[in-house]
């Protein structure tokens, strides 16, 4: 089973690596980060420069990057359904759910690459232009560079959970539509609709998008010298993201396994 999933995952990657848009979108994010010092200068003091990282990361990853990751994932299955290649794949000796999991893994990998790119670029800019010697206020060292790196790494790790939930969500939508464009539009539209309706409906605590930026915010809090790390929020993030991930994956697998792929 693992071998088949891994093979299907490698196949997915070999296909994605040959798509221009995979690189274009990464380039777009890189460009956004590269231009951000013009909007929010790297001032050369340690406080402000860690702040630059905290400023850039959620904007590049949770707004632009997340949108592109959703668009990438939303096209993974709907493209195959629209072109008909799904029929070729499903006549191969692989379970349908295994194929869906491989698609999910491809989406997650893309998200991971996007996150890594954002992280590397934002830190590199500050490394070249700024000062990374810890967060100091009023002469008092509040967080050393090592602590800031740890906080960021923890944020990186934690932020993967809601993003993974988003990937699974996009994949589920991808299985319910037959055109890549409508799939991307439905995914992004639902995301925005959820964001604007979740609070009036009182369900914001249960929607994974609420927690998308939270892990980076803890890093930002450190940059601002605020200690607000709370395990309760982290638990909510994990529970909500995990539930969304499982539900979305269930929807995606059910949708694919119960469907007939006739002409």
């Amino acid at each position, binding site marked *: 089973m693992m071998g088949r999933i891994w093979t299907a995952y490698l196949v997915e990657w070999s296909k994605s690596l040959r798509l221009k848009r995979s690189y274009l979108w990464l380039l777009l994010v890189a460009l956004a980060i590269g231009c951000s010092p013009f909007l*929010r200068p790297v001032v050369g003091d340690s*406080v*402000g420069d*860690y*702040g*630059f990282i*905290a*400023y850039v990361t*959620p*904007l590049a990853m*949770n*707004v632009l990057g997340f949108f592109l990751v959703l668009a990438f994932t939303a096209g993974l299955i709907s493209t195959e359904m629209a072109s008909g290649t799904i029929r070729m794949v499903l006549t191969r000796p692989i379970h349908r759910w295994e194929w869906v999991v491989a698609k999910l893994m491809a989406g997650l990998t893309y998200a991971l690459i996007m996150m890594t790119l954002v992280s590397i670029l934002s830190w590199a800019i500050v490394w070249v232009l700024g000062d990374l010697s810890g967060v100091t*206020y*009023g002469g*008092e060292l509040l967080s050393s560079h090592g602590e800031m790196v740890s906080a960021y790494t923890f944020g990186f790790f934690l932020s993967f959970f809601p993003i993974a939930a988003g990937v699974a969500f996009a994949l589920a939508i991808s299985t319910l539509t037959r055109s890549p464009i409508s799939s991307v539009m439905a995914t992004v539209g639902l995301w925005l609709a959820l*964001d*604007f*309706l*979740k*609070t*009036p409906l009182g369900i*914001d605590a249960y929607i994974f*998008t*609420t927690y*998308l*930026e*939270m892990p*980076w*915010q803890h*890093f*930002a*809090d450190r*940059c*601002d*010298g*605020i200690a*607000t790390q709370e395990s309760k929020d982290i638990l909510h993030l994990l529970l909500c993201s995990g539930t969304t991930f499982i539900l979305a994956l269930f929807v995606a697998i059910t949708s694919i396994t119960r469907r007939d792929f006739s002409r």
Partner: protein
Amino acid sequence: MKSLLVCALLGGLMFQEQEIPHFQGAYISGLYGGTGWFSRHADLNRDGQMDLLLPERIMLQRDKQYPVELHIPLPDLPDGAVLDVWDDRIYIKHNEGIRCIQWTEGTWLTVLDQTLDWQGRVPKNSVAMGTLPKPELGRFLHDINADNQPELIEVTESALWAYTLLDRQYELGLMAPIIPPTTLSPRTAIQLWPDVDRHFAYPVREMRANLVLEGDEAILIQRQKLPEQLMQYTVTRYALNIETGTAKPSGEVWSTQAVPNTMSLRHLNNDGILDLVGIQQELSSASALPAFIRTHSTSIDGGKSFHSVRARVFPGFIGHTWFVDVNHDGRQDRIVESPQIFDQGPRETITSMLTRKKIGHSLSVYMQGETAFDANPAYSLKFTMDLSEPPIQSGPLFNQYIRGYRVSLLGDFDGDGWNEVAVQAKENLLELFNLNSGELVGSIPLKPNMRWTVGDVNADGLSDICVSAGIDWDNIGLLLPGEKLPTTVYFSLGNQP
């Protein structure tokens, strides 16, 4: 007079309600909290109960309340009179001299009416154009020689003056030239460009010193500006002697370290060392949105070490309280409040600003220990403030909230030695949470558009709640409660079985 018992919804905390005309309760003073009162306590009729002195009347206490029939107007006062109270006597300082009156056997008895040639002008309260200056409460009485007769204190640009009572008449008893010279204010700098903004400004001189009287000592606190936005406080003590009419330096001159110029002096404990507190506000370095970081710094060792707490706030957010002796141990504890709307990242914050009708509010209490403030909060409470409308619409409830009118820490309502935090999380309900246990101990219903403050109105050791109506919440920053607004006081009766 309407009087009835209001029972707390939960717990045994009970209140007695009374509508008191002309009573204005407290107001929030200063950007970062603190409360001022429009009245003073004194046992004016010598019955052992604290009465209220207001600028135009007194209110006598009976059975923990202030019945309307015991509201007595003050006699006609000269224009610009300033009132102070000593025991049961009311001193009225005016341009021509000093008058002292006493409420005795149902009438005003003039104890003293003396012409005095003040060294400086009597400070007038601020008046609107075209209106007469009204009487106001002030502080000018201090007993220097411990004879239980207050001296009249006057401070001018050149000296501290004290008038002492000799043979039932006040005479100048002390002239202490201890006041430092004024300096030219840097704010008088003239802008030369652009041309349209070019104007000549009158030079303004400012006094960079404060004077505090403690017993027979005058404590002069001078501020000296240092480079790099630093400053230093110097404290000089003078022994005042009315008999010789002199003021001599006593003890050593004490100086703080060079501290940031946002720090000011305050008494946070009884260790005899002046303490430093300050708030600095700057834009968050890490946020894509205009979130402000407010740094609360405190030093209780004269500026050698600082305890700083940082919180993310709305632009213009006013915390109602800053330092409060939460557990009544004589040491002021630190309160840090923070609206929780900038703690979810830029995208989520924008969504919240556009759609969220409730926002979280966190309140942390840092206790002051023997030698320092605790590094971590002893109590952290979180409330969900109902705004009725999203913050972007800047509705009345939001305005009340960010101006600090919906959270107060000033009261010990049940007399257990721990302050309660009073929170108006919902528009129509004021809830009281005990800070020691975090439990809800009581609540009172509120009508819409009500403004409330907390304080011990009848000086019985239990905090009371003053509720007044009719504030224009959209312009709340410009308004103080008007004199004609009815105020209802909920007198705490403590925990009742």
